[in-house]
């Protein structure tokens, strides 16, 4: 019997048990929530280093326990926590320390609306996709504020580049997602996945999948679009001045965003949790997401970096036009009745 406020010890225990076993608590703390995210982010840092090493015929992390040095992220984390946090003497100290936390916050908040299974979602929001885009659009602003706060030349240039990149690639990303919204008829991510029970949207919206994938590679500032952190020109770009724990928290935010965008591709185009029934839904979701993440990591070992003007020109003249053309294609597909066999 759960009563509030509790008076006897039994009632306190009952209340605590009620909270811990509630669906909201489990989703927030354990499965799509904090523990799952931390583990996956740690896995992704190891996975990226290992995969890049294999592409370049190296071995990669090896000695930190487990098969293939899989405990390397823990060793890195312990090392970074005990390193000195260096803050430049002219830096804006509160902003310099607050912005990495904001980066993590805005990378992790959108996970609340990502459905990892039919009921494995923290908040089943009706305007989930818009909420997600709103949160991810704040990311470059946080980068610019962090770069401004560190009061150094390289980070400032990197932060400005990050802003330009967002200007060029935000619109193609939204318009590419618009075709999916038209096919599903909803902004709720759970409904979008349920609309793909018969056919994955990668088939009717293949062009917008290509545009969306390129645009999120630019959003995530990964090669070939990693101009904000171009090592030969800008040392380490906008996080040149970060060290120790600040660096660790920034990397937590960056890899959370990689996982977020891979899972968004899975939700919008690859049918979310749908798959043969011998594995549970969240397992299918995570397998698909990791495959998408693999395709995001591989270009880092393969492609050279673009120039700033090439990057912005590609975003506006190619991607936006392809995305707009794909909207017309979607109108044709829906109203010609080709897709009616799959219930669209």
């Amino acid at each position, binding site marked *: 019997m759960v009563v509030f406020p509790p008076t006897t010890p039994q009632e306190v225990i009952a209340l605590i048990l009620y909270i811990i076993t509630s669906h909201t608590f489990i989703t927030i703390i354990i499965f799509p929530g904090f523990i799952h995210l931390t583990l996956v982010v740690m896995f992704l840092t190891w996975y990226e280093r290992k995969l890049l090493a294999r592409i370049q015929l190296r071995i990669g992390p090896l000695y930190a326990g487990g098969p293939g040095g899989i405990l390397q992220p823990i060793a890195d984390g312990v090392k970074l926590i005990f390193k000195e946090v260096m803050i430049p003497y002219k830096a804006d100290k509160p902003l310099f320390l607050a912005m990495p936390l904001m980066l993590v916050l805005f990378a992790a908040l959108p996970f609340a609306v990502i459905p990892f299974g039919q009921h494995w979602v923290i908040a089943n929001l009706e305007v989930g996709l818009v909420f997600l885009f709103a949160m991810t659009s704040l990311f470059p602003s946080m980068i610019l504020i962090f770069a401004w706060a560190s009061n150094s*030349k390289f980070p400032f240039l990197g932060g400005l580049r990050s802003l330009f990149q967002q200007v060029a690639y935000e619109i193609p990303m*939204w318009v590419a997602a618009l075709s999916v919204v038209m096919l599903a008829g909803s902004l709720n991510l759970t409904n979008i996945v349920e609309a793909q029970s018969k056919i994955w949207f990668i088939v009717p919206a293949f062009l917008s999948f290509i545009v969306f994938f390129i645009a999120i590679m630019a959003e995530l500032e990964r090669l070939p679009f990693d101009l904000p952190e171009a090592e030969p020109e800008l040392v380490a770009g906008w996080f040149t001045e970060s060290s120790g724990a600040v660096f660790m928290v920034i990397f937590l935010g960056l890899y959370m965003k990689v996982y977020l965008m891979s899972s968004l591709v899975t939700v919008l185009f690859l049918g979310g949790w749908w798959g043969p029934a011998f594995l549970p839904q969240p397992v299918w979701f995570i397998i698909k997401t990791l495959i998408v993440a693999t395709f995001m990591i591989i270009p880092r070992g393969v492609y050279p970096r673009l120039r700033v003007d090439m990057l912005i020109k590609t975003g*506006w003249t190619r991607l936006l036009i392809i995305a707009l053309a794909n909207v017309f294609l979607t109108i044709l597909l829906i109203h010609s009745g080709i897709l009616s066999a799959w219930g669209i």
Partner: protein
Amino acid sequence: MNPWLAIVIWGVIIVLLTGPMITLPIFWSRRKPDPFRDMPFESGQVPQGEARHRLVMQYYPYLLMFVVFDVVAMFLFAWGISFTTMPLDSSFPVILFLILLAAPLGYALHLAVRKENW
């Protein structure tokens, strides 16, 4: 449970659990300030001048296009949700608008890709 409340709880949990990762190391890792170690990194040189100086505003036409297309993309979402449920002739004005949009988009891109307009 109200989804917005769940999002707020999730945000509070993130801040509570990641906050110590950045605030605690500052207490045990900070040694006494050193003017050379705390200098901004400029490849070993002593920094000259202001870091927050004014820069040339490049790629200005693209920024103007962003202001316009930001709004357009957002309103297209409002139309996109209800596209399958309404008949084609009621979404005809939006389609006409998108076709008409091609001319200014083409002209803006024609201006934007020319180097003297950057």
